[in-house]
């Protein structure tokens, strides 16, 4: 499927270059239509505004620790556009764009980072999304199990799962790719290689030249794409999804990208990377090049973009206020979801807690 883009030959798939131009010398690949490209652009705009707003809220003391998505948006936006709504979407934690493609309300994202469990409540039938997984890469086996379940039930649903370059060092990454290969599971492993795991650079995580090439050791294909190019991400994911749907098993996609912001709002990236490096990557910003593309192709006017960004900002502000005013979780709820039915010894602990919170009588 990716014969022309074998990562072992140093090849990386790029369709839309830094200047917003489509590379013309490529073989035939799945392409975003103009309508889809415009949709991707609009979602990327709201993702960027929502993300910047979260960082700004953190500085105002209104938002706890938050991991910015800035610079990586094309990875989850392009890939989630290439799968269908019934396909399972297993997040790491920097896939806000993909969540918005799926139709998840922005409020829910804010709710999670505001520290409310309801931020992890995704109606399964509606979204087919798993909540953020805090221990790095521990979500990968779930994706393989979900893929197995769909195959077992005889649906053509696949699973797409995300992790990062640091996450490829975790045993779950090896075990999951290995299980998926043996079971021929319909799953796409999408690694957002943003070059750093907090402060540790990619070459300190693995001695292999690319992450994508690891797939071949598990008996399936891997491809490295320009993760800042929504067209390349879309094309690779579409091919991998069709491959999985037809019963041909898993694929590993490495999105070669860059985190323009900090790991989280608690991180200071100037301690471990050069300003020049960041400046070079800003030129490759996925939003800048997609904006050039939609303008060049007259899919939108400059004036409309100004309005769009203004609207996006408003939308982000409103979503945050909604999340901030969301009902706080109750004492009862901290107990009632431990099991389907609360056992007597836990019920007793709930009673005791209620009594404690009631104060001295």
């Amino acid at each position, binding site marked *: 499927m990716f014969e022309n883009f074998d990562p072992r030959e140093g090849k990386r798939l790029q369709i839309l270059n830094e200047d917003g131009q489509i590379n013309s010398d490529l073989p035939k690949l799945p392409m975003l239509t103009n309508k889809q490209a415009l949709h991707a652009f609009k979602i990327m705009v709201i993702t960027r505004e929502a993300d910047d707003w979260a960082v700004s809220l953190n500085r105002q003391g209104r938002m706890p620790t938050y991991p910015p998505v800035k610079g990586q948006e094309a990875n989850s936006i392009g890939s989630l556009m290439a799968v269908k709504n019934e396909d*399972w979407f297993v997040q790491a934690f920097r896939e806000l764009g993909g969540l918005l493609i799926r139709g998840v309300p922005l409020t829910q994202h804010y709710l999670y980072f505001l520290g409310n*469990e*309801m931020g*992890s*409540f*995704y*109606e*399964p039938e509606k979204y087919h999304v*798993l*909540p953020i*997984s*805090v*221990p790095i890469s*521990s*979500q*990968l*086996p*779930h*994706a*393989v*199990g*979900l*893929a*197995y*379940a*769909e195959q*077992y*039930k005889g649906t053509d649903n696949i699973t797409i799962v995300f992790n990062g370059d640091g996450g490829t060092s975790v*045993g*779950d990454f090896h*075990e*999951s790719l*290995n*299980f998926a290969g*043996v079971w021929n599971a319909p799953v796409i492993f999408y690694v957002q290689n943003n070059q750093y795991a907090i402060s540790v650079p990619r070459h300190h995580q693995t001695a292999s030249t690319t992450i994508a090439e690891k797939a071949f050791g598990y008996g399936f294909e891997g491809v490295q794409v320009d993760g800042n190019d929504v067209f390349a991400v879309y094309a690779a994911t579409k091919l991998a999804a069709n491959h999985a749907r037809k019963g041909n098993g898993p694929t590993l996609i490495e999105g070669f990208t860059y985190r323009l912001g900090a790991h989280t709002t608690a991180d200071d990236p100037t301690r471990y990377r050069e300003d020049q490096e960041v400046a070079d990557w800003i030129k490759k910003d996925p939003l800048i090049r997609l904006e050039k593309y939609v303008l060049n192709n007259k899919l939108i006017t400059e004036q409309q973009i100004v309005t769009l960004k203004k609207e996006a900002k408003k939308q982000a502000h409103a979503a945050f206020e909604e999340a901030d005013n969301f009902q706080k979780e109750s004492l009862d*709820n901290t107990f009632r*979801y*431990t*099991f*389907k039915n609360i*056992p*007597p*010894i*836990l019920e*007793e602990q709930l009673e005791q807690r209620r009594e404690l919170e009631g104060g001295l009588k």
Partner: protein
Amino acid sequence: MQALTIISAVNDALMTEMQNDKNIVTFGEDVGVEGGVFRATVNLQKKYGEKRCFDSPLAENAIVGTALGMAMGGLRPVVEIQFSGFVYPAFNQIITHVSRMRNRTRGALTAPMVIRMPYSGGIRALELHSESMEALFGHIPGIKVVIPSTPYDTKGLLISAIRDEDPVIFMEPKRLYRAFKQEVPEDAYTIPIGKAAIVQPGTQLTLISYGSQMKEAKEATALLQKEGISVELIDLRTIYPYDKSTILESVKKTGRLLVVHEGPRSFGVAAEIIAMVSKDAFEYLEAPPTRLTGADTIFPLPSAEHHYMIHTAHIVKRATEVIRYQP
């Protein structure tokens, strides 16, 4: 009715329940063709096919992690960990996901799954093949821990575990796997999780044990009976959520308590039970609630195994002390 051992009761429960529910799948190391190293899954692949009973690659963490994915995807996986001493790589999945998914997602995603594993010592095995670490699981909020001690209970409890909407750790007393047979119905039946069994009613001492240690506990009960001491023997059966009311009712009647288990002492199951009894039945106690447990040592290799194991005579000795206690 059929006369079954504990290991064949495990097989029978799976055989029966997989017939009833097509969403049940079972897998693990050597589970498929071989039917498991103890033969717990023998003939399941033959009967239900390779999609429902199969070998997995050798990685306990991914066995449990993929099972959770399957459970969230609508299946009911029953996975086998070959020996409980190999479950530790899977602790990450058990603690960070399996036990928390219902709570994390406010009930949107759940983990109806069973993790089976043989445990207990006394079988002259290699290192890490003999431990009784049920207390580790009992300490994790969000999972149930079940340990049967008879073939009849094994089938009924395993079927309950499979039908449970929450994850269940099912620990099987491998020392008793083939120790004796018992009449077991051929149809499906359940024994409630969270309910202890009063194996023998008595009036002078409450003796609580479970799993592999029940053999010695029963023998001790019979010996004490001959001495004219009336023991109420309780098989706990569920470690979490344990049956507080049965324990309290018994201790309030007898006033004396001895808890016996193979696992290490500190922070163990007996510690929890005794702490609970000391608070909730304080005024009924006529002797200090006592525990007879494995020591806080590494389980010895076979040449010194007998220095770790709790024998019938040890239980009789401690029980007699509790009975004779005078303040």
